[in-house]
């Protein structure tokens, strides 16, 4: 059976060339980059060069502003908990949004529950956008940190981050953005955006799992989250994951070189999918904006039916998709993001996310458009809520 992977928002295949670039670090240049001998120095050269690749992708001012982590979650934890703990003498109020990834929400909840911080969770509109007036209105005397994601991983909504950073700067609020869904997929310029911190993760753009980075603007203070050795400018202990870091560097370079094509390719397929679904399936609800959304993200609610049942049927046809985010599958609660944009519980349970990647083709889209309508109809026919 033909297998079509449309869950690139969850994770992507590692590019074979990235893997090739990583291989010497496993078996030849296997030294610890903190060691002064030649094995270590070889590894250090590789890590330094990857750091520059990351720097260039996001236009950071210097490679020292890049802190390697074990992924997007750790980058978010370091940013949110690290900046909160470092700033707690100035104040204990944090601003975030209701539709952040759990890797931001859970650190915030932890700070609230265990460490006496106050967190404002900003609402979003029906498209999933945080409004600048709400943002400004939430800033208080003791606000030290704001974290608003660049793009939502479920419904693909892009946020007007630049507006927030201007307001944050005016009030001396450190601003973090979770750009895990954006980095490597859309052009990104931390200077232009004006963010203080930005999280990314290699496996979301054809790099390896288990490695990511936090951009930390020079001068911004955070406490380490991984307490240990003196690595990463004393901000992140633990022996460097040299192959992973080299893989991240490789995909950053690759993303820079292929960015324009990639965006164009994904947007074309995305719009084909969205329009095709709307044409072929009655009663659909597109989640997120039609245009200001991630180039590879398609997200619908199909009334009367349940998401997992759609996924299982798609899987039986060889199509890998998701409903909500991968890390919450297994949980029974409907997506906080869909509830956040005002969907009812019933609708929230009936959602489908198709996320495109660089390997997808027009044929893939056509195949989905061929099988999905039947699946939805079959499930509707089974549903006690459907009356047609």
């Amino acid at each position, binding site marked *: 059976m033909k297998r079509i992977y449309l869950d690139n928002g969850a994770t992507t295949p590692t590019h074979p060339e990235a893997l090739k670039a990583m291989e010497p670090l496993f078996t030849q240049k296997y030294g610890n980059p903190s060691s002064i001998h030649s094995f270590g120095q070889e590894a250090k050269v590789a890590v330094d060069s990857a750091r520059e690749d990351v720097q260039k992708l996001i236009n950071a001012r210097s490679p020292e502003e890049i802190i390697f982590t074990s992924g997007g979650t750790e980058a978010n934890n370091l940013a949110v908990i690290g900046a909160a703990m470092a700033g707690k003498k100035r104040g204990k109020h944090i601003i975030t949004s209701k539709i952040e990834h759990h890797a931001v929400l859970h650190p915030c909840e932890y700070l609230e529950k265990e460490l006496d911080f106050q967190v404002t969770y900003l609402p979003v509109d029906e498209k999933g956008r945080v409004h600048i007036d709400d943002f400004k209105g939430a800033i208080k005397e003791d606000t030290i940190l704001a974290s608003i994601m660049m793009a939502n991983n479920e419904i693909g909504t892009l946020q007007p981050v630049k507006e927030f950073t201007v307001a944050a700067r005016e009030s001396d609020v450190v601003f973090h953005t979770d750009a895990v869904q954006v980095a490597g997929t859309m052009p990104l310029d931390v200077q232009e955006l004006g963010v203080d911190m930005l999280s990314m993760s290699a496996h979301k753009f054809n790099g390896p799992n288990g490695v990511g980075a936090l951009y930390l603007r020079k001068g911004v203070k955070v406490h380490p989250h991984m307490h240990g050795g003196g690595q990463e400018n004393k901000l992140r202990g633990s022996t460097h994951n040299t192959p992973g870091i080299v893989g991240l560097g490789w995909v950053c370079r690759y993303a820079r070189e292929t960015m324009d094509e990639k965006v164009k390719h994904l947007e074309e397929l995305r719009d084909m999918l969205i329009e095709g679904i709307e044409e072929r399936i009655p009663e659909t609800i597109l989640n997120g904006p039609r245009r200001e959304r991630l180039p590879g993200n398609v997200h619908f609610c199909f009334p*009367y*039916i*349940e*998401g*997992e*049942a759609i996924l*299982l*049927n798609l899987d*039986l046809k060889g199509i890998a998709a998701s409903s909500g985010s991968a890390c919450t599958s*297994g*949980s*029974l609660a*409907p997506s906080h993001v869909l509830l956040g944009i005002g969907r*009812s*519980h*019933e609708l929230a*349970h009936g959602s489908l996310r198709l996320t495109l990647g660089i390997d997808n083709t027009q044929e893939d889209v056509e195949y989905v458009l061929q099988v999905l309508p039947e699946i939805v109809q079959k499930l509707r*026919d*089974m*549903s*006690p*809520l459907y009356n047609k």
Partner: protein
Amino acid sequence: MYSDKVMDHFTNPRNMGKMENPHGESQVGNPTCGDIMKIAIKVEDNRIKDIKFQTFGCGAAVATSSMITEMVKGKTLDEAMGISNKAVAEALDGLPPVKMHCSNLAAEALHKAIEDYKQRKKGKEEG
């Protein structure tokens, strides 16, 4: 994730659909928790003569609905009332722990449909 039996019932659900003039009927669950099950039965000689289900829910919800209809068709009402959640899950070669609540739903729906039948019958006899 799911056993072959679950996937079999999910892909080829038995006794799925609406029923004209059911003798007993029930709907359990609610959209908040993501599962709704509807069961309709026809009863003859105290036995379940016909049964149909409709389900809004995950793979486990569909499969347990389908399985329970197959298990009780032709059984006496007492036998059907004796079907436990555990029995349904076992008949499906088990369910993932996070999905165990779905088997509760199927048994609950069945039992409620039988009770509805009894209520109606009592109503008729009394009326």
